[in-house]
């Protein structure tokens, strides 16, 4: 019988009740008494010189409190980048200034030029329209290749060119990789585009700044995945507010997918303006603004070469990628195409030599940063596509080619990563073949063909690297932050528990999952445990939620803190029962003395801690509250194998997903229902990337896909039911829960199998098509078939 309690139970989510009844408290639901509203006037050209911003007429408009321009931010810091990449030649990346409001030039459509603060939003909008701009439009750098050519328009005048960095990894392998490719029996080459995407969480961003004149404290309510990171970046680097005078609150957040990790200009503006006008200031993004100001994702142009020996063993991989940074470096932009991408290039395979080259490019487009998977989907897509192409060129079964090259012994150090601790890629593939009924594919293809449809099967594997760490390693790689997390376990006098965590839940269900872990450890009911997150004034300094890190990193901190609680409780219980501490056992919420019938209840011990009348005060302090910081010794390495079956309508090129199966190894699983939901959502986004979504700029840098009418978000009718399985579990060896992380897997693992399936379908119909770039739209498929 499935567990209904503790680790492994599919407990229903406690947070659902408020969300299902309209009682959630999202940032836009917060109104601070007396608040004013801000409307940002944003650039409508991709590149231009600001000659004049004339606000005189606008300032006289009704309701206007104050209008801010770039000049108001003289002496205020710019938005910082949190990761310094060192290039192939040992030089630091170029790091241009990123002002809160544009100064001198505008560099992308949507770049904020001025901000109108008014009594109402309508008045702010009206006044923003009355600002007179004199902007001299300049030629824009949009296409990455063109942006790197001599004489291309320069996004930043103070930089010599648009190249942010030219990164090589592993640079020392470069010559050996070249030689291995030259000597190979077969080399498969693939050039592809991993298109730009927009994260589009359903909740647009919101920021409410508040300043308390009595105390001098600033508060920012914001839609963030990591309130402490925002407090640190904004306080220390932008506005110069010490941590103890700045509180950042991220309440219920309506999805993030990476786009709410970063520190944005609007957050700094609202905090700054609230103090300047001595009044709370609120900004709510429209969806149109979200398209123009949320950091976007992916946007890589890649060439990958896979070398094989005469027995089809992989001998070398060489890749060359252009990665779009957009107009400015967003908070973690520089790390995505480098350390989160190059280190994944071995995938599930024992390829002895790998060299990854990435040139990061500034363009006059919205900044690009981490989006669900962040570098790892880009790595997986090129690797799993080139393997499929190689199998086809060599006339071998793509699954067999993968199996032949699988890493089978763990731990395993690839040429580009720290050590994979565990995995079982063979078992994962075996399970996929079983649940996806691959042996029945031929019959299903026949049935599709009888209807006049082409049917294809695509398979791929993936590995992920989650819980990015340890801090001393990432520090060497350029991270300007530690990547630990923290938890405080506060046991109250009557035995209930508040757990303050650095992780932030914006859909992941932490409020349900984290108590399951504590309940398991203490043998008490989950209802006695509550999670506190999202408020820097309540929680310890933690790094937030991204990179599938919450349970592996913050959950581990929570386990460590709970272990301290257990140790102290045992001391108290031993004193109460006049027994040796070593003889105390904790089971089912009861402390007992081994080999006797003596016991005290959990609540007796917790009460004693706070009413220490009969208490070993000479040995231990009263109270029962412990904090732990956890810095992992390694990444975790989830892995999986995915299969997709598509039907392609040869008359229209329309692709329909007929079957999708995912087998993931996440190590131990605390709440299977939630884990499966995470995989579903990731696959939905991966199918979105594979078939539908595309963020498109024209040659002038105008964003053509800037609304839900132009940017094809997946709808319910675009996707099937998914089969998901996580039964092949090899627990992580280096964290106390043996967990690996599941948030991004679906988005990483699904695009290649969809495209592999489409190519397979077209090939089965006699079309010699070897690649179609995503999104594999009907138009592109039809062109490929009829090209």
């Amino acid at each position, binding site marked *: 019988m499935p567990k209904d309690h503790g680790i492994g139970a599919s407990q229903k989510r406690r947070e659902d009740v408020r969300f*299902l009844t309209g009682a*959630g408290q999202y940032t836009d639901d917060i109104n601070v008494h007396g608040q004013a509203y801000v409307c940002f006037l944003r650039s409508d050209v991709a590149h231009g010189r600001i000659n004049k911003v004339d606000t005189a007429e606008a300032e006289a408009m009704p309701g206007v409190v104050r209008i801010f321009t770039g000049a108001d931010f003289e002496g205020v810091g710019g938005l910082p980048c949190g990761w310094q990449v060192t290039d192939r030649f040992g030089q630091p990346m170029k790091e241009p200034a990123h002002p809160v409001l544009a100064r001198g030039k505008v560099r992308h459509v949507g770049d904020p030029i001025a901000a109108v603060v008014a009594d109402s939003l309508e008045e702010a909008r009206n006044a923003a329209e009355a600002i007179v701009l004199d902007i001299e439009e300049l030629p824009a750098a949009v296409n990455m290749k063109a942006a790197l050519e001599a004489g291309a328009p320069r996004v930043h005048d103070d930089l010599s060119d648009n190249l942010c960095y030219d990164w090589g990894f592993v640079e020392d392998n470069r010559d050996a990789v070249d030689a291995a490719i030259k000597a190979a029996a077969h080399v498969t080459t693939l050039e592809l585009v991993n298109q730009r995407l927009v994260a589009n969480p359903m909740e647009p961003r919101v920021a409410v700044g508040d300043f308390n004149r009595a105390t001098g404290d600033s508060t920012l309510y914001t839609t963030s995945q990591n309130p402490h990171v925002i407090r640190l970046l904004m306080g220390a680097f932008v506005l110069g507010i010490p941590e103890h005078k700045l509180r950042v609150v991220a309440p219920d957040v309506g999805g993030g997918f990476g786009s709410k990790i970063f520190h944005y200009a609007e957050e700094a503006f609202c905090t700054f303006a609230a103090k300047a006008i001595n009044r709370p200031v609120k900004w709510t993004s429209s969806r149109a603004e979200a398209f123009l100001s949320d950091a976007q994702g992916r946007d890589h142009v890649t060439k990958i070469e896979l070398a094989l020996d005469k027995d089809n063993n992989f001998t070398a991989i060489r890749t060359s990628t252009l990665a779009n940074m957009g107009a400015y470096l967003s908070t973690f932009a520089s790390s995505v195409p480098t350390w989160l991408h190059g280190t994944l290039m071995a995938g599930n395979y024992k390829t002895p030599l790998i060299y990854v080259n990435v040139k990061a490019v500034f363009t006059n487009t919205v900044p690009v940063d981490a989006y669900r998977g962040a570098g790892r989907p880009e790595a997986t897509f090129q690797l799993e596509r080139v393997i499929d192409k190689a199998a086809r060129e060599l006339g071998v079964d793509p699954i067999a080619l993968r199996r032949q090259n699988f890493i089978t012994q763990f731990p395993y150090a690839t040429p580009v990563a720290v050590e994979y601790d565990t995995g079982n890629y063979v078992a994962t593939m075996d399970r996929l073949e079983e649940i996806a009924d691959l042996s029945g594919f031929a019959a299903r293809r026949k049935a599709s063909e009888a209807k006049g449809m082409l049917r294809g099967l695509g398979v791929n594997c993936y590995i992920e690297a989650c819980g990015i760490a340890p801090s001393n390693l990432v520090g060497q790689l350029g991270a300007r932050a530690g990547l630990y997390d923290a938890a405080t376990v506060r046991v109250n006098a009557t035995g209930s528990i508040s757990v303050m965590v650095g992780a932030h839940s914006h859909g992941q269900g932490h409020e349900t999952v984290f108590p399951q872990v504590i309940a398991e450890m203490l043998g008490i009911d989950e209802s006695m445990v509550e999670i506190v997150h999202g408020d820097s004034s309540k929680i310890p300094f933690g790094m937030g939620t991204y990179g599938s890190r919450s349970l592996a990193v913050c959950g581990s901190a929570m386990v460590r803190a709970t272990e301290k609680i257990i140790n102290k409780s045992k001391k108290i219980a031993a004193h109460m029962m006049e027994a040796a501490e070593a003889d105390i056992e904790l089971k089912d919420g009861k402390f007992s003395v081994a080999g006797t019938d003596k016991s005290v209840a959990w609540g007796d011990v917790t009460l004693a801690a706070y009413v220490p009348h009969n208490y070993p005060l000479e040995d231990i302090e009263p109270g029962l509250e412990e904090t732990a910081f956890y810095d992992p010794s390694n990444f975790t390495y989830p892995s999986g194998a995915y299969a997709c079956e598509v039907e392609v309508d040869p008359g229209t090129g329309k692709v329909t997903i007929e079957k999708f199966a995912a087998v993931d190894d996440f190590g131990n699983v605390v709440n299977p229902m939630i884990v*499966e*939901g995470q995989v*579903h*959502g990731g696959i939905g*986004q991966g199918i979105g990337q594979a078939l539908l979504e595309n963020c498109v700029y024209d040659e002038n840098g105008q964003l053509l896909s800037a609304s839900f009418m132009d940017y094809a978000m997946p709808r319910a009718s675009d996707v099937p039911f*998914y089969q998901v399985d996580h039964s092949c579990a090899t627990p992580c060896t280096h964290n106390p829960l043996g967990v690996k992380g599941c948030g991004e897997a679906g988005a990483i693992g699904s695009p290649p199998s969809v495209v592999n399936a489409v190519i397979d379908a077209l090939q089965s119909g006699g079309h010699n098509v070897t690649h179609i770039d995503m999104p594999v739209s009907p138009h592109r498929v039809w062109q490929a078939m009829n090209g």
Partner: protein
Amino acid sequence: MVDVTMKVNGKTVTKSVKGNMLMTEFLREELRLTGTHVGCDTSQCGACVIHVNGNAVKACTMFAGECAGAEVTTIEGMANKDGSLNVIQQAFQDHHGLQCGFCTPGMVMSASALLKENPKPSEAEIRHYLEGNICRCTGYHNIVKAILAASGQDVSAIAAE
């Protein structure tokens, strides 16, 4: 400014509002019923679906004045009289049909309208009906499953837990 009177979740309310005030703003700011969410500005996302005289509408497509005299139901009015989750809400919780919760009110309101007009919808009918409700978290799997379950259909054969 115009005086607008309507019945919202069974309670009669009168407010003096500007003629161009959208129903989303009326509910969220005038009545502080913040369960109706705004996820786009082109009437695509469906996070603001409410019922007006029993019909599902996107609140961002109506002026408050247009609802004068109407009976309006929002997500805040969907639970059972005793405060417990109604059948659809309960099915969403039972089948993990929500993650971040932002699209959820619109999903529940749309699902409720669907089941009223089609008490036993097929999977395809549900997926088609949800054309105007975008969810970014769930991949729709558990939303569709929850609606099938709420309509009393057996979902035990659907893949996964």
